[in-house]
Structures are given as structure tokens and as C-alpha cells.
């Protein structure tokens, strides 16, 4: 058996729309097989994984809480990836945003003012943007590979947070637990609805998605991003600077990740702990690709990936499979998304018989 690709004369619009859905279906099929191998009834398992979390109001709120950081980070990443800048350190920028935003409620906890919350959010964005500025500077001016540097800085950020909450920022009245003091009321991002815990982070995520969608579609900046991403040379001829684009895209995605970080801490956790993210920064990479790097697609994709987090917890409770299934699902999904994207640019032909190929070779 052989697989041959034939370049389509034009990008297939049909498959551009269909490919994420095909990927989802394939992931679910693969998931069913996996549950079968684990000795569970696949239908029960899929039901508790993908449907159960959608049936109750509180868990819909949890869905929004988990989707918010995923969407916000992925929207920023989409700009990076479209312009061919591979920021994979969003997890670190998320953490640094959370830390920078927490300076006010942890260090200056005695300062009470309605300005606290807006300042926290701004500082969170700034923290994330500056942290992303490190790989941006290194790439733009010292020619250093941003994939590796941004990833290395994730580990550094995690260790820095660990040191802060065990050392200088540890709650003096906290019985030696590695936590900061809990935030005062005016430092907490308010809930959106009276029915549950969803906070304003979700609104930020949707707003960011719409703003970036608008920028990509209707502004010169959007054109600049796609032109430079497709061909740096073409971009240079058009007078665009790839160096400035590195700075712009990395700082923008850093700011988004930082905002996600401080929103998560202020809205959902309300203090700093050694671990504040179940890998949102990495999962957001999957969200960005499942959403086909389109901010509006990313909103839907963020909800799907948030569901895999909830589904993992639900499946653990109701049918006793490990919640580690979540990571497997997320990885499989990204694989299928990437393989289905091939359909957009190529026709895939599967050649079953070996004879055709060997006959041609033999003719030489």
C-alpha cells in the first residue's frame, strides 16, 4: 500500500471547514477504541466524557472557566503562528502574568482601592508580554531559536513561582502551607452570572478573539502578519519588517497569556500556589490548531478542549478510568487535526496494489 499526494490547484474551501470536524470524529473513534482496550464500555465512557459535563449548570460554569484561559492564550498564539513565530512558552508567560498581577494583592495587600483590579490586570498583561519579550529579543536581535528559548523559560517561570510561594510570598498566617495570602475582595475578578462561578475572564477571552479576528481581517496589520508568515521575502518587498513582527506577535501573545494568568488566579484560585495551571499554555497550542488559527474557530475549539478537562474528571468519577485519559485525548486530537489539514492542500490517493509502482521502476 502506498499513499500519494497530489497538490490541489486551489485550497479546498470544503475541507478547510470540514477538517476540524473530521479530526474530532476520528479522535472520538480512537477514544472509543482506547476505552475498549481499557475494558470499559466505549459508549458509556464516551457519554460520561463528552456529554455528562454538559448536563448541569455548575459544570457548564466550570466549562467556561476552563475555556477562558485556553481561548485567550490560543488567540494570541494564532497571531504568532500565522506570522511564523513559534512561541511555545505560553505556559511560562501565563505564570509570569499571574505573578506580576499578584504583586498588588500579595505585597501591597493593605492598599484598598477600586483601582486594584484594573491595575492587576494591566500588570498581568505586562508581565506576560515582558516575559515573552525575552525570546522575542533573542530571536529578533541575536538570531536565537524562539522554540527552544520560550520553552526553557517555562521551566524557569515554574521554579520562580515555586520559590515565591514557598519563600518571600508565603502567607505568614498560612500554617506553613506553600500559598500566598488569599486576595482581598477588591482584588477578585467578579462573577459574571448569579448562577455560578464563571468570571469576567471568559468575557476577556471572547473580546480578545473578536478584536484579533477584526485585526486579521480588516486591518493592514493583519495583512502584514499573514504575508510575513507565508514568505518573509515577500513581506520585505512589501516594506514589512520581520524583526518588528517578531516583537509584535510575541508580545501580543505574551500579553494574552499574562492576562489569562492573572484572570485565572484572581477569578478562580484567589491566591498563588506552586501550581496554578493544568498545562493551559500547552493545551492552548492544540486549541489554536483545532481552531485553524482563526480567532472565531478558536472560541469553539477552546470549549471543546475545556470539555476534555471536565470529561476526564467526570470519567474518573463515573467509570473509574484515569483522568490521564484527558492528555491522551488532547494529544490524539492535535494529531488528527494536523493530518486532516493535509486534505486542504492535497488530494490523497491510496494505492493498494504494489504492482503499479514496481512496474514503472522496472522499466528504467
Amino acid at each position: 500500500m502506498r499513499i500519494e499526494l497530489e497538490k490541489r490547484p486551489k485550497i479546498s474551501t470544503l475541507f478547510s471547514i470540514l477538517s476540524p470536524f473530521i479530526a474530532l470524529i476520528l479522535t472520538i473513534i480512537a477514544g472509543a477504541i482506547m476505552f475498549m482496550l481499557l475494558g470499559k464500555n466505549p459508549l458509556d465512557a464516551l457519554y460520561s466524557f463528552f456529554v455528562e459535563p454538559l448536563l448541569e449548570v455548575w459544570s457548564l460554569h466550570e466549562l467556561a472557566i476552563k475555556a477562558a484561559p485556553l481561548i485567550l492564550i490560543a488567540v494570541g498564539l494564532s497571531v504568532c503562528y500565522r506570522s511564523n513565530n513559534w512561541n511555545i512558552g505560553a505556559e511560562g508567560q501565563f505564570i509570569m502574568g499571574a505573578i506580576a498581577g499578584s504583586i498588588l494583592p500579595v505585597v501591597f495587600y493593605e492598599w484598598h482601592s477600586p483601582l486594584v483590579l484594573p491595575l492587576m490586570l494591566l500588570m498581568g498583561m505586562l508581565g506576560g508580554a515582558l516575559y515573552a519579550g525575552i525570546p522575542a529579543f533573542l530571536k529578533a536581535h541575536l538570531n536565537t531559536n524562539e522554540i527552544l528559548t520560550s520553552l526553557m523559560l517555562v521551566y524557569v517561570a515554574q521554579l520562580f513561582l515555586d520559590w515565591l510561594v514557598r519563600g518571600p510570598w508565603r502567607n505568614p498566617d498560612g500554617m506553613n502551607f506553600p500559598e500566598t495570602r488569599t486576595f482581598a475582595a477588591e482584588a477578585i475578578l467578579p462573577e459574571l452570572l448569579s448562577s455560578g462561578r464563571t468570571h469576567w475572564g471568559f468575557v476577556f477571552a471572547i473580546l480578545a478573539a473578536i478584536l484579533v479576528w477584526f485585526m486579521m481581517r480588516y486591518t493592514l496589520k493583519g495583512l502584514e502578519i499573514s504575508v510575513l508568515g507565508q514568505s518573509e521575502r515577500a513581506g520585505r518587498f512589501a516594506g514589512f519588517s520581520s524583526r518588528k513582527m517578531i516583537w509584535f506577535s510575541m508580545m501580543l501573545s505574551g500579553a494574552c497569556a499574562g492576562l489569562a494568568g492573572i484572570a485565572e488566579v484572581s477569578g478562580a484560585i484567589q491566591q498563588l500556589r506552586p501550581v496554578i495551571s493544568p498545562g493551559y499554555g500547552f493545551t492552548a497550542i492544540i486549541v489554536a490548531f483545532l481552531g485553524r488559527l482563526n480567532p472565531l474557530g478558536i472560541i469553539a475549539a477552546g470549549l471543546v478542549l475545556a470539555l476534555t478537562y471536565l470529561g476526564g474528571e467526570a470519567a474518573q468519577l463515573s467509570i473509574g478510568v484515569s483522568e490521564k485519559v484527558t492528555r491522551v485525548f488532547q494529544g490524539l486530537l492535535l494529531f488528527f487535526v494536523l493530518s486532516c489539514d493535509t486534505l486542504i492542500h492535497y488530494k490523497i490517493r491510496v494505492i493498494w496494489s504494489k504492482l503499479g509502482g514496481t512496474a514503472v521502476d522496472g522499466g528504467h
Partner: protein
Amino acid sequence: MSIVEAILLTIITASTPLVLAALGELVTERSGVLNLGVEGMMIMGAVCAFAATQMSGSPYIGILAGIASGALFSLLFGFLTLTLVANQVATGLALTILGLGVSGMIGEGFVGMSGIKLQPIAIPLLSDLPYIGSLLFRQDIIFYLSIALVVGVNWFLFKSRAGLRLRSVGDSHASAHALGINVIRTRYLAVMFGGACAGLAGAQLSLVYTPQWVENMSAGRGWIALALVVFASWRPWRLVAGGYLFGAVSISQLHAQAFGIGIPSQVLSALPYLATVVVLILISHNRRTTLINTPASLGKPFVPDR
């Protein structure tokens, strides 16, 4: 055994997985493929090696399982990037994410079990040499393999015909294709070699370095291995130097703690990652030398025309 010897021994143990994983990736990248999934293949190797050792009772079966799982796992990457020409950066990330997830699931039943440590093999006569005898010739088989592989890969790449073909595929896949070299097959083999080496590196972690299974126990070593390839400018012997330098940095935190130096442990733990960044800066700030050394087709997809 003196303190110096003990420290050198731990450095060797910490460096071997870095050298192995980076060596595999070096061959993969020389063929023009950038596989960012080293971390994922490594952790799969670690968990499969540990599981196979526990079930069979023999760490040698474990080593084979580690190699096989790494190679098989890399095939997934190969299929996507070589057959379906998916984006190599994104697919490599997917491999890492999937590897961390699958290994967590496989390893769940093995958490907390005490493993079987791979025993050293003393080489007759040589192991009796003063100083270097106990350091270099009383080691486990994975260390010997790592050195043999470096020698072998160096010979293969620069002295053999097949190695020349592999390099030509990495430098210009279009020309290599025109010369009748099967680009896709060459790259599949290179990717699988990279996977096998990463799997072996993982086996070293769970059978020698810390003979047990801990989730995410590769702790970024796969990524450091990727940086090492750049550091070594795609040459095997420089890679050994870099690998041992990094091994020394990463082990220094343990020794610094033992000597009671008053630096927060987190700072010491961050050292290998910071060192990676610094080294990358030093190596790549000169745009011209980077361009000369990097395989010219690295990361670029290839679709044979017909």
C-alpha cells in the same frame, strides 16, 4: 572511591541520556527533518522500559522495549510529516503532548514500585586501570552503547556512502531526489533512528538514573537534547562535549545542596534551563556560521513530483 570520582560518575550518568537523545536527533536533522517530539519519545522509552523490566524481570528486555517504543512512536511523526507533509513543528509538539499523556496512562500502575537497576559490567583488565578504570570501564551497557553510537554515527555520516546520501537529502532534497535517492525512505529511517535513540535515553532514565517510574520524569531533557544539537552544530563529537557539560550543570544542583551552599534549590534547578538559553545565544548570534552549519532543507516539507 574519592569524592571527585563519585562526582564524575554522577556526571556521566546524568549526561548519557542527553548524549543519546541528542545523537538520534542529530541524525534526524541531518536528513532535513526537525522532530521536536524528542521529549515525548524519551518519556515513552522510559515508561516502556520500566514496564517491560518489571514484567520480565530483566532490565535488558527493558532496554529493548525502550528502543522499540521510541522507534515505533517516532513512526507516527514520520507518517504525518513525511507521508502527509504536516507541519513539522506542530507535529513534533503533538508527539510530545501525546507521549506525556500515554506514558502517564501506561505508567499509572507502576508508580511507587521500586525498579530493577541495570548493573554495571566491568571490562576485564581495563577496569583495573587507576582512576579511569572505575569511571569508564565499570559502567552499564547503555553508557558503552552511547559511546559506540557516537563513534558509529560519526563514521556513518562522514565516511560512508549511505551517510553522504543522508546528508545530501538534508542539504537539498530536490537535488537528492533528482539523483535518484529515495528522500522519503531515507528520512523515515533517520526519524526512526532518532526515535530509537530517544527511547534508549528514556530507558537509561528509568533503569539507571533513577530506577523507578515517575510521571514526566524526563523533565525537559528532550528539549535540552534539541538545544544540544544546535550547540554541537550537527557534529557528533561536539555533541559529546556539550552533553557532558550539560550533565555537569544539571548534576551540580545535587552537589551544591550536599555542600550546603545557601542558594535556593529552585535557582539551582533552573540552571540547566538557563544554561541552555545562554548556550543557544552564544552559538547562534552569528547568523553566518549558523547558516553554514544548519542542514539547508531542515524543516522543509518534500513532496516527490511525478
